């Protein structure tokens, strides 16, 4: 790598800068809009002339955003927890046990991962209304778990296959009880895969929009991405650009933190099930 010529260095530097700019400009634009004073929204310059926190203090004191934010976090965490637990059980069976219909199970998971969501919205809407699940947390948690499972099963079975399970036997030979062998040897090895899977499932729930606008009707269960549609502007005819941008920034911050801290895990998880030579 030391043998790079000046031109090559300049080439790579330019390429990197271009990539970073292309990624960051739309995000920076949201940040800029969220900091513009309401009167300055009709100024198309990229950076605000006058900075204000008004949009943030506005949405962070309004139940119209705070309640959906809470819903997003709660629904996301519960769905992620259930998905990871159920997917771990299934992935353990796939990676460790022999049973008929294993390839059918993997195929079913794959089929559901590719399912066109809209095809389910009509029947699930009717079913949820009949069961009283419409506009409740569980009305979203149940479908989120169902769509988190294929992702979880796929990612976790790839991780579980790489765990050296002989260690469990070795630990038992050294006098560990089955419980000790599991908690002290296997669980620490399985944890990274489960954390990765949890992040991917949580991001998928956090990102959902179609189910969130279809199965909710009030802020009792509406999630943050769906709630932004219902922000009100200064008058009926003005788009609430500032508050929407501020809300978009707020729901993007957790993602950026996740990406900063768990970059390696996310990459490993995304590529584990999907691609092998």
């Amino acid at each position, binding site marked *: 790598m030391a043998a*790079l010529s000046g031109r090559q*260095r300049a080439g*790579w530097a330019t*390429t*990197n800068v271009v*990539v970073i700019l*292309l*990624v960051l400009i*739309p*995000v920076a634009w949201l940040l800029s809009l969220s900091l513009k004073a309401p009167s300055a929204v*009709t*100024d198309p310059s990229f950076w605000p002339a006058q900075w204000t926190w008004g949009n943030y203090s506005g949405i962070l004191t309004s139940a119209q955003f705070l309640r959906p934010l809470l819903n997003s976090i709660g629904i996301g965490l519960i769905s992620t927890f259930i998905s990871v637990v*159920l*997917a771990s*059980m299934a992935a353990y*069976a*796939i*990676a460790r*046990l*022999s*049973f*008929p219909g294993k*390839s059918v199970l993997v195929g079913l998971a*794959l089929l*559901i991962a*590719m*399912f*066109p969501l*809209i*095809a*389910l*919205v*009509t*029947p699930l809407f009717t*079913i949820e209304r009949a069961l009283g699940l419409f506009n409740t947390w569980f009305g979203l948690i*149940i*479908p989120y778990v*169902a769509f988190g*499972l294929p992702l979880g099963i796929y990612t976790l*079975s790839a991780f579980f*296959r*790489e765990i050296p399970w002989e260690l469990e036997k070795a630990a038992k030979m050294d006098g560990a009880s089955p419980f000790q062998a599991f908690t002290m040897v296997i669980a620490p090895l399985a944890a990274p895969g489960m954390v990765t899977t949890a992040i991917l499932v949580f991001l998928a729930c956090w*990102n959902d*929009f*179609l189910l969130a606008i*279809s199965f909710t009707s009030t802020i009792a269960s509406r999630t943050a991405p769906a709630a*932004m549609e219902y922000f009100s502007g200064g008058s009926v005819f003005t788009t609430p650009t500032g508050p*929407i941008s501020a809300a*978009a920034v707020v729901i*993007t911050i957790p*993602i*950026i933190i996740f990406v900063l801290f768990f970059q390696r895990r*996310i*990459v490993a998880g*995304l*590529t584990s099930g*999907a*691609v*092998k*030579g």
Partner: protein
Amino acid sequence: MSTIIPPRETTATPAHAKPKRERARLSEGAKQERRLAFWLIAPAVIVMIAVTGYPLVYAVILSLERYNLELPQDVKFIGFANYGAVLTSQYWWQALTVTVIITVFSVGITLVLGMLLAQVLHRTVFFRGTIRTVSLIPYGIVTVAAAYSWQFAWTPSEGYLSALFNNSAPLTSQVQAIAVIIVAEIWKTTPFMALLLLAGLSLVPDDLLRAARVDGATSWQAFTRITLPLMKPAILVALLFRTLDSFRIFDNIFILTSGNNGTASVSTLGYDNLFNALNLGIGSAIAILIFICVAIIAVVFILGFGTAAPGSSAGKR
């Protein structure tokens, strides 16, 4: 990633290892193992089938009925009339055309850009960590948040992109709005494509590329003759995932244009028929037709895959 062993070999079933003499007892053990496996997979399978299988059957039934939520007492079995109504409607064919155009362009361009980004991530010499982290942001960002950014950017007299292009309003014209939607899709999905391709790229041995260079191949020749063929399975998987994902496009269109000016996709059309027209029958017929389209795309891809199909992962890899 390349060290993953097929599950059947890692499952050290005692039945394979022990001599025949103990067969009766061992098959009891195998039975127990089976029972345990079924208990472990049962909750996941039940949830997945309850949320997808049963509603799908229910959607088929709904699609054969005249069922409008505004006239709940007037529910009647009408056979394939809903399908006839959808398939003779210009809105369906327009939405299907728009969806196919968006899918073809966004997936095609994303493949090329994703390959370039994968090369950058694989080979760049500075800030490798930074650039990998930054390029994950579009994957992680909520689609709706990114869609608002594009929408505001193209709003005349408010957005920087509109100002840059002579105060134009592309979201009000069909062709330009579709182009904006495609750009928004490409921005959001290129990192995911690049990551899938990067995993394939890291399987290409550097020695092979160096050997080709020594033999006088240009970089382009090395790329098309060595890298691409070795990456074929990774490319096909990435294309399948992206194509099916793009075909069900909803969020970007809903925020950017609400499907106005002839920009509706099949998914937004289905949504409108359910929540604006409150027509469960027509909405379900559209849903089933979308499901059939997705099944056709999947079958075409999997036939193209041959043994590299992801479904065969439980078998040989």
